[in-house]
């Protein structure tokens, strides 16, 4: 099983104030907060870690059929950040997920899988999102994420 999550940075900036008192503690572990506070671009780090958590959470809920809203229990580890990409791992309820992220000035998109081989096989399709058009469902993507201006489909 695979998962993905896209954050439209413009939309996120409009909808969310992550600087709000208490927000960080509700969402990020101590070591994640350290990564954010020491990042040259803190907002980018916030949404990078957020999309890693969401992408792995999607696999986990489809696996277990259990829903829960516990962002600090979904832990980001071994993050390696380059200029336009990042890789990392997520640990959630003793399950390990591998993530790969694309970063640009418009959006952050993370894909997740339960092993590295599967992660490398994922095909990504990103387009502008049109709420009135649901044709993308006919493509039978393995996971879908849309946010703000963008739609991201992943296939295995």
């Amino acid at each position: 099983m695979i998962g993905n999550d896209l954050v439209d940075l413009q939309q996120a900036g409009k909808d969310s104030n992550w600087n709000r008192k208490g927000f960080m503690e509700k969402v990020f572990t101590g070591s994640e907060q350290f990564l954010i506070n020491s990042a040259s671009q803190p907002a980018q780090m916030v949404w990078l870690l957020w999309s890693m958590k969401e992408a792995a959470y999607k696999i986990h809920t489809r696996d277990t059929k259990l829903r829960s809203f516990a962002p600090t229990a979904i832990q980001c580890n071994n993050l390696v950040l380059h200029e336009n990409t990042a890789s990392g791992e997520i640990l959630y309820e003793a399950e390990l997920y591998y993530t790969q992220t694309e970063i640009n000035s418009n959006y952050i998109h993370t894909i997740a899988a339960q092993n590295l081989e599967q992660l490398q096989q994922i095909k990504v399709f990103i387009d502008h999102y049109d709420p009135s058009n649901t044709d993308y469902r006919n493509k039978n993507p393995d996971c879908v994420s849309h946010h703000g201006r963008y739609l991201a489909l992943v296939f295995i």
Partner: protein
Amino acid sequence: MDKPELTSRLKAIITTYAQETDALAHLTEETDFIKDLKINSANLVDIVLDVEEEFGIEIDNDSMSRMLTVGAAIEIIEAKLAANDRE
């Protein structure tokens, strides 16, 4: 605080973030924040923070993890208010 007052104060908070006005107009205890009201998960954090401020309570991570529906939110707020009263 009685339940209707609690519910109306909660609804005022939810209204800020809900994308689905139909589901908001027909709010029940079963209404799901994400599935029915299309509230994004970042804004679910805002709802938890707003609830903490509005009701003067602290919502621990374990309670937050269950706060997916209006009914669950009401139950958690009631329990925390009752715990505050006992202190």
